[in-house]
């Protein structure tokens, strides 16, 4: 009745991966890499190549030599592919090494001065050179958070309104607004600081947390506006049309349909903006400076912030102050990563993404 054997019947079959690299081959490759690594180490002793960077160069050269020489039984095309694989992999490793080195350095040098008091006490009763179990950066953390909060409060509404203007309202000034926002995204951070210094600080007659927050806001506004626009642009016009076709007015369509669709995207944009500015140093050096104690009043004179605290500790230049600088960096990096990971989490939950899941 059927010409196909086993039609309609379940046949059992072992899943195979004929294209996979076999276990023995993988072991062989691993062994080869290990040998090369040892050979490169020997090379650092025997040749002028020294230290880790010398070892890396030796390792790369040995690899290349192997690929070009020993693997010459391959055709020209395969050999070129193999050489390229080695080159690209080494470039990639080189690209990642500094960042991993920074991470390791910050952790190794930073954990020394960590103790619970570090997060709650300030430097009023201790000098940068004191033992590491007194004093802390609580005041700097608070200062940073206050200034970032000021920046966020100022930029978030303005940035989102600008994004809505560019995508939904599309008034006569669309081109100009987009142009200015894009140009201002390139303002060097020190120039933003200088601007606030010459306006706010000079007219108030004092450095302050408010000035620092505003300087950060100047840097954040173009970023938030731009990302808000990008995110809103992702909402397909179909969705707006559907809203209008249901008899909705523009403002209800924008607020009830378009904005909820990109809620996750907008929060991600805001948090990423925060993660970017929380480590800004230059503008704060010009606007809020540094101080030794907690300052809760944003218009009450100089305020410490993590970046300026780290900067000051580092410039002080003793062993203990240096350790404090690194601990500050550890805290700062942890804060940045914390915001970053939250942004990531939110971004992954975006409704638009769930709707149009692309590859990966």
């Amino acid at each position, binding site marked *: 009745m059927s010409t196909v054997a086993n039609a309609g019947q379940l046949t059992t079959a072992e899943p195979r991966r004929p294209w996979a690299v076999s276990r023995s081959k993988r072991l062989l490759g691993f062994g080869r890499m290990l040998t090369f690594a040892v050979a490169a180490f020997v090379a650092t002793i025997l040749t002028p190549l020294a230290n880790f960077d010398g070892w890396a160069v030796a390792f790369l050269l040995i690899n290349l030599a192997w690929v070009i020489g020993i693997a010459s039984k391959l055709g020209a095309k395969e050999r070129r*592919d193999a050489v390229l694989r080695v080159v690209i992999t080494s470039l990639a490793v080189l690209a990642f090494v500094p960042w991993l080195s920074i991470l390791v350095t910050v952790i190794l040098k930073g954990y020394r001065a960590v103790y619970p008091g570090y997060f709650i006490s300030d430097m009023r009763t201790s000098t940068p050179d004191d033992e590491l179990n007194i004093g802390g950066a609580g005041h700097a953390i608070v200062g940073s958070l206050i200034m970032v909060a000021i920046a966020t409060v100022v930029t978030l509404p303005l940035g989102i309104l600008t994004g809505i203007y560019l995508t939904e309202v599309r008034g006569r000034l669309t081109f100009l607004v987009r142009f200015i926002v894009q140009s201002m995204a390139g303002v060097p951070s020190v120039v933003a600081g200088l601007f606030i210094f010459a306006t706010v600080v000079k007219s108030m007659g004092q450095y302050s947390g408010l000035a620092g927050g505003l300087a950060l806001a100047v840097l954040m506004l173009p970023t938030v506006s731009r990302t808000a626009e990008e995110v809103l642009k992702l909402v397909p016009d179909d969705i707006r049309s559907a809203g209008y076709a249901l008899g909705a007015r523009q403002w209800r369509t924008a607020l009830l349909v378009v904005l909820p669709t990109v809620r996750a995207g907008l929060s991600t944009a805001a948090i990423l903006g925060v993660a970017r500015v929380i480590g800004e140093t230059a503008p704060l050096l010009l606007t809020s400076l540094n101080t030794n104690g907690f300052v809760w009043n944003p218009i009450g004179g100089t305020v410490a912030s993590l970046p300026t605290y780290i900067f000051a500790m580092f410039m002080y230049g003793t062993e203990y102050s240096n350790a404090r600088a690194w601990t500050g960096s550890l805290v700062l990096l942890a804060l940045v990563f914390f915001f970053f990971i939250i942004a990531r989490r939110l971004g992954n939950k975006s409704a638009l993404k769930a709707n149009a899941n692309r590859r990966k």
Partner: protein
Amino acid sequence: MTIVETPEPRQMMVVYSRADRIFRRIVTGGALTSLLLLGFITAFLVMRSAETFRQFGLDFITGSEWFSAGEDPLGGAVEGAVEEVDESVFSIGPMIVGSLVVALIAMLIALPLSIGGALYIEFYAPRSIYRVLVSLLDLAAAIPSLIFGLWGIQVFTAIGVRWATLLNDRLSFIPIFSVEFENFGRSPFVAGCVLAALVVPITTSVSREVYSRTPRDLIDTCFALGGSKWGAIRSVVMPYGKSGVIAGAMLGLGRALGETVAIYLMLNLVFRYSFEILDSAGGNVASMIALKFGEATDKEISALIASGLVLFIITLIVNMIASSIVARTTPRA
């Protein structure tokens, strides 16, 4: 069939209800505030620097002297000095050159690393670590430049000096690698390397993003035609991602030109034209502003604002070149 006369088009306009008009007015108000705020910054920079440009003209950009005289740092004139001729001279030629030199060194190092890194993540990395690598990369792009500066001084300088010594030993016949004193620690070369480390995550991140958008079927077509991986990369991925890589590079260049603290920590500020990248002298406009503003007189602040404006214009030009290149070469999806 009779000939149909075409009537006049009826007036047609999207009419907004009252609520809509209020909504649009609020949004427009917000956008206008942003516009005015950002526009005001530019206007302010231009206005405050006018005095400096009027006094020094083009010399401000080409000259190599920065000298502030005759005023109390706190604003008022020093008594008795009021009637004296103001001898202050402000010009930032070496700083502009310094900014460009350091940024160029950084980009020369960063670009190959970024392209390699981006290609590796997208096309060579095992799928199991792909997501980890992408996240690590994004995190790296968020590290504050201050931390790069600290790392540069306390960790990298030792390595950088060794490389500099090597370059100086072997290549000192090339003018840019010769030095008067063999003291490489605070040279533009080492600072450029640190700046490269700072820029790499940014450019890699942008390039990777663009490479990842290469249409899968184009790559598959390459393989189906018997092409190698390199073939696919060279003939499809690279051309497709070219504009994105340029955009990423320009973004990185903008960052490198405007970098303040890392350079402040890594370089000795010297007001002298210098193209010897291993010499421990240099500086850039941004770090000069941070260094000088503290004890600046009003006049000096005007000069610093003028420097800021020059820096801003340079980054603006870089950004505009980038966006025009991107606009011209972006592949249509």
